[in-house]
C-alpha cells in the first residue's frame, strides 16, 4: 500500500537526475560555442598549427551542423569518450580517473572529520543548552562556517609548517607508506572540514533541541529509557535527517573546494588537474573534469534524496498524501 508512492518517488528522482545530467552536458557543449573565433584553435591550445586545427575540426566534426555535433558529443560522452588531452594526446577520462582517487580520499576524509567532530559537538551543545560550552560553541560554529577554506589552508601551512614544523605538509607522500600519506592528509582535510564542522554542529544542535522537546521523548523518559540512549539513539536518528541533507550538498561543495586544498598543499587531484589545464587552456581536460564533478554531485544528491526513504519512514506516507 505504501510501496507504490515510494516507487513513484524513486522513479521521478531518477528521471530528474538523468534530465539534469543531460542538460548539464548540453550546457557544457553549448559553452564551447561561446568561444570567439575557431573553437578548434582554443580546444587545441596554443600549440595548434593550421594543419592540426583543420584535422581536428574535421575529426571533431566541427564542420558539420550544430545538432549533429551535439548528438556526436552526447554519444561520445555516453561511451565514456570525453576527448583527448591536447598536450599528451591521452584520453582525458584516463587522466581524470588517475587522479580522482586522491580527490575522493580528500573529500571523504574531510566529511569524516566533519562528522566525527561536528556530531559530538552538536550533541553536547544540545544537551547542555545555555552552558558556557554551548555559548562558546555557537560563536565558534559561525566563525568556522564563515572562514573561507583556502584561508584556513594557508593559515594551517603558516602555523604547522613555517612556525611549528610539526606535520609534513605538502604533497601526498607517494612512496612514503600509509602512515605518511595519512599524516599528510590531516591538514588538507581539516582545512576543508572546518566550516562543515561548524555547519553540522549548529544544525544538529538546533534539530536535536527541537526533537528533545517532542512528546515521544517524554514517553521514553516515562518508561525509564536511559537518558543517554534517548539522546544518542531515539532523538539523534530523527535529528540526523536534516544533517544528512546538508551532507549531501556538502559532497558537491567539497569536491569544488578540494581544488584549494590541493593547490595549497601541492597534492595531485582533480583540482590540480583542472588548475594546470586552465593555465594552458587545455579545454578538453577542463570539460571532462567539470563533467565528472557535476556527475558525482548530482548522483550524491540523488542518493541523499533516496536515503530519506530509509531514514524517515514517514516519507512514504507523505508522498502518498502529496498526490
Amino acid at each position, binding site marked *: 500500500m*505504501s510501496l507504490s508512492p515510494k516507487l513513484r518517488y524513486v522513479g521521478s528522482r531518477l528521471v530528474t537526475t538523468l534530465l539534469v545530467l543531460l542538460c548539464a552536458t548540453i550546457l557544457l557543449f553549448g559553452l564551447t560555442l561561446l568561444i570567439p573565433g575557431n573553437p578548434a584553435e582554443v580546444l587545441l591550445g596554443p600549440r595548434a598549427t593550421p594543419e592540426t586545427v583543420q584535422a581536428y575540426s574535421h575529426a571533431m566534426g566541427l564542420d558539420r551542423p550544430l545538432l549533429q555535433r551535439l548528438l556526436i558529443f552526447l554519444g561520445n560522452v555516453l561511451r565514456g569518450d570525453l576527448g583527448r588531452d591536447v598536450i599528451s594526446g591521452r584520453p582525458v577520462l584516463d587522466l581524470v580517473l588517475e587522479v580522482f582517487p586522491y580527490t575522493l580520499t580528500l573529500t571523504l576524509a574531510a566529511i569524516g572529520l566533519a562528522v566525527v567532530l561536528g556530531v559530538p559537538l552538536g550533541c553536547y551543545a544540545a544537551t547542555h543548552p545555555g552552558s558556557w560550552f554551548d555559548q562558546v560553541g555557537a560563536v565558534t560554529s559561525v566563525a568556522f562556517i564563515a572562514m573561507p577554506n583556502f584561508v584556513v589552508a594557508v593559515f594551517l601551512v603558516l602555523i604547522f609548517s613555517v612556525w611549528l614544523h610539526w606535520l609534513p605538509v605538502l604533497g601526498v607522500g607517494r612512496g612514503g607508506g600509509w602512515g605518511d600519506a595519512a599524516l599528510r592528509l590531516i591538514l588538507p582535510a581539516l582545512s576543508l572540514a572546518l566550516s562543515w564542522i561548524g555547519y553540522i554542529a549548529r544544525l544538529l544542535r538546533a534539530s536535536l533541541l527541537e526533537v528533545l522537546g*517532542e*512528546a*515521544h*521523548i*517524554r*514517553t*521514553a*523518559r*516515562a*518508561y*525509564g*529509557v536511559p537518558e543517554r540512549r534517548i539522546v544518542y539513539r*531515539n532523538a539523534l*536518528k*530523527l535529528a540526523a535527517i536534516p544533517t544528512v541533507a546538508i551532507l549531501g550538498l556538502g559532497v558537491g561543495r567539497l569536491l569544488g573546494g578540494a581544488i584549494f586544498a590541493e593547490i595549497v598543499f601541492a597534492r595531485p587531484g582533480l583540482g590540480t588537474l583542472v588548475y594546470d589545464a586552465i593555465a594552458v587552456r587545455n579545454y578538453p581536460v577542463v570539460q571532462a573534469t567539470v563533467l565528472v564533478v557535476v556527475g558525482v554531485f548530482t548522483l550524491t544528491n540523488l542518493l541523499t534524496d533516496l536515503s530519506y526513504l530509509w*531514514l*524517515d*519512514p*514517514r516519507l512514504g*506516507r507523505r508522498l502518498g498524501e502529496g498526490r
Partner: protein
Amino acid sequence: MNDPLLQIRDLSVHFRTGNGTAEVLRHVSLDLARGRLVGVVGESGSGKSTLAATLLRLLPPNLARLDGAITFEGRNLLTLPPAETEALRGTRFAMIFQDPMTALNPVFTIGNQLVEFQRAKQPSASRADLRARAVRMLARVGIADPARRLDDYPHEFSGGMRQRVMIAAALLTEADLLIADEPTTALDPTIEAQIVALMRELHAEIGSTMMLISHSLGLVSQLCDDVVVLYAGTVVETGPMAEIFRNPLHPYTRALIACEIGHDVARGDRLASIPGEVPDVTRVPPGCIFAGRCPDVVPACREAVPELRAFGPDRRAACSRL
C-alpha cells in the same frame, strides 16, 4: 486496602514564568488506594497534568520549587536521588499520554519501541521474548494481526490504534501505578468509547492502581471508583464517584456536574458555562481560590483559605460554608 499505594501530602509546585513565580499545585494532599481507579478532574490550568508529571519526576526545566512529600513504599519520592526516581519509571509507574499521534517516536517501529519500554523492567530478557510479550499484549488490547503489525511504524496506525499501543506499552511494564493523562482527548467520540471500554475491561482484569487525569467529569464518571476535583492547583473535593455525583458538596463540583448534565454529548470545554475564569496563578487573591466565580460566595470566603475537611468516612471538601 487501608494501606494506600501512594500518599501525597502538602504538595506544592512552583514554576518560573515570564511574570513571576506561579504556584501550579497548592498544598495538595491525597491518597491513592491500592487497586482503585482514581479520576483527577479539573479545567486546563488546574495543575492536573503537573500532578502526573510530579509523580514521575518529569517536571519541565522551569521548575522553581517543590515542597511536601509523596510517600511510596515508605520512601519520599521528592527527596530520593534522581537515579532512584528514574529507576521507578517504567518499572513501578507507567504512563499513557494525551496525544497518541506524537507520543510515539515516528522513526522507530512499534515493536522496537515496545521492546525498549520493557527494558527498564526486564534488563536481561532476550529481544525475542520481549517481542513475543509485545505481540500477546497487542492482541489483548485489540490490535488485529499483531505479529505483523509489530514491524509497522506509528504513522501506519490510526489514532485509536496508537492509543491501544500506548495502553499495551503501559500494561507490559506491569507497573503498580498506571497514570493516564487525558487518554481520549485527542480521539473521535466513537474511538473514545472503545478506548474507555478497553480501559475498564483491562482494569477489572489486572486490578492495578490507576490514575485517570481528565478535564471531563463525564469520562471520569464512566471509569473511576474515586474522584479528586482540582481547581487552580487546589484539591476542592475528593470522594467515591457515586457519592460525589449523588451529593456534590463543593460549589465548584456542583457547577461541574451541572455543566456535564447540560452538555451530555457535546465535546470541548464543558466548563465554559461557569461564569468567570480560573485565577491567574501568579497572583492569587487571599481566601478561597474559587471565591471569584462562586455563586454562593460570602465576604468571609475572601478572608481565609478553607481547609480540606472530612465529611463522612471517605469524603472531603474545602469550603468554609459547609
